[in-house]
């Protein structure tokens, strides 16, 4: 075999190996999700079957119908949970982004004493594990009487999201050239106007993705929610998943259906922001 042919062969083998590797990796990544969707559509008998039934014999939306048909008919108050999740996530996202914009702007545009120390300090408040946070919060909230209320959850989630929102928004504001705002100010804008008319529109896609990221954090949070919520007044979807578990058994089909309901909004939103999100996280990395 001459050198050309062997080189071509190596190249082709490498391409095939690459394809196979990629396919396997994607399979591992997607399989659990596909399995959840599939299980939510199959009857419980088939899920529990031994030996396993690999090819679904009958698919139906029974689990979804049962879930939405209310308590007593095999359902859970999923609409209440959904509403709670939505109210809590949206309000805390809006507040966290507003506060994060102010903070991020301060970090991106001003020099002040103790800046990096303060930045790290803000980040460190995020490291407190949810379960460790929940102990004192539970106590304080019980005293204030805001356990199992939307207000309490929103407050906790705002605090949870601020550090990360500031980090992301700081990155996006840094990508907006300082000269633009300065030029606007020379042309007669106040700093306030310059911010809203020049810098904000440029950083808007980034801020939107920070918002979606904050929303997803709230949407998916469990450790705090499981301790600070008690009833349909404020229980969120992640806590609602536990309704499908009993002492020794789990209704897998119902749970899979609820999981799918939970994932769809998250999936859509993540898809929208994927590009901007990475930009915000890494914008400081290369330029320092």
């Amino acid at each position, binding site marked *: 075999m001459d050198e050309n042919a062997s080189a071509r062969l190596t190249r082709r083998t490498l391409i095939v190996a690459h394809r196979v590797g*990629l396919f396997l*990796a994607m399979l591992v990544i997607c399989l659990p999700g596909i399995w959840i969707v599939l299980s939510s559509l199959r009857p419980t008998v088939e899920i529990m079957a031994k030996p396993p039934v690999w090819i679904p014999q009958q698919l139906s939306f029974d689990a979804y119908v049962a879930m939405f048909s209310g308590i007593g008919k095999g359902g859970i108050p999923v609409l209440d949970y959904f509403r709670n999740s939505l109210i809590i996530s949206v309000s805390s996202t809006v507040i966290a982004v507003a506060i994060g914009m102010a903070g991020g702007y301060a970090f991106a545009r001003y020099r002040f004493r103790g800046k990096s120390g303060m930045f790290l300090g803000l*980040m460190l408040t995020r490291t407190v594990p949810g379960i460790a946070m929940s102990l004192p919060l539970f106590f304080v909230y019980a005293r204030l009487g805001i356990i199992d209320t939307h207000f309490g959850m929103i407050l906790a989630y705002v605090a949870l999201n601020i550090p990360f929102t500031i980090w992301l928004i700081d990155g996006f504001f840094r990508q907006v050239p300082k000269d633009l705002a300065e030029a606007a100010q020379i042309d007669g804008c106040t700093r306030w106007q310059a911010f809203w008319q020049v810098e904000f529109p440029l950083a808007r896609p980034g801020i939107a993705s920070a918002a979606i990221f904050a929303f997803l954090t709230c949407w998916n949070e469990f450790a705090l929610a499981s301790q600070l919520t008690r009833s349909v007044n404020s229980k969120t979807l992640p806590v609602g998943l536990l309704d499908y578990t009993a002492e020794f058994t789990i209704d897998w089909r119902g749970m899979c259906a609820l999981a799918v309901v939970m994932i769809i909004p998250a999936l859509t939103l993540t898809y929208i922001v994927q590009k901007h999100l990475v930009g915000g996280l*890494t914008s400081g990395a290369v330029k320092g």
Partner: protein
Amino acid sequence: MKGFKPSAPILLLLPALVVLAAVVLVPLLLSLYSSFTPFRLTRPETFFVLIGFRNYMSILSNPDFWWAFGRTVLLLTVALNLEMLLGLGLAMLVEKATSGQRILRTLMMFPMMFSPILVGFQFKFMFNDNIGLVNNALQSLGVTQDAIPWLIESHLAFTAITIAEVWSSTSIFAILILAGLLAMPKEPIEAARVDGCTPWQTFRYVTWPFVMPFAYIAMTIRSLDVARAYDIVKIMTDGGPAGRTELLWTLVGRTAYSDARMGLANAMAYFSILLSIAFTVYFYNKLAAARAQIGAEW
């Protein structure tokens, strides 16, 4: 803020500081105080009894606590390293792909959308010894006859938890490292190839130093949120079998809410907070160092 008029950045940061002080700092101080009391939820009057360092002493002399502590550190070390390696591999596979990059990138982010608690349930379902996908597949393929007790035997349970954790977080590494690979200038690689570097040398001395800050960003983000493993473990094994997969966080939760011993739990919680802070500060410093290195080179 010593008497003079507060400056603009301080004013801008004020709302953030106020909220964080109210929701994080004050409660933490409160829990610091209560870690010096024998406080039980069921007996509110115990909140005002000071017992000095007795909670800390009893924790430090408790082997269960040290096991949980060691296991937490082990899980974090194993999981973070695996996630980093797999994320790097995945990012390089996707970067090499000639077509369908957009689809691949979206698929790659799939696990990020899953709530950790969902990851817990999903893997609990898949690793179920009787009806789980893993055992069904192994048995159908004839690898084994018996049902492997994934979540029941302690080492296997730990492995299963690690797999769940790695599955859920590898994509964060992959997506950030991929961003690094895509942002990287092409000239140095070509120069290295012209100069006769092997692919391995090119990777080790050209690509890797450039991608490193991105890996550290991922590490920092992950360490901000390491405790999300709590949700996974809580659901998959709840610390079982017989406390063999108990992590610091599940131990804190159990002591606080099942045993209602808040004072003791708060003392433990402080250890887990210190652990998280140590991880974060470590990676944050690494990140700063890696950034400085690149700044010098490029």
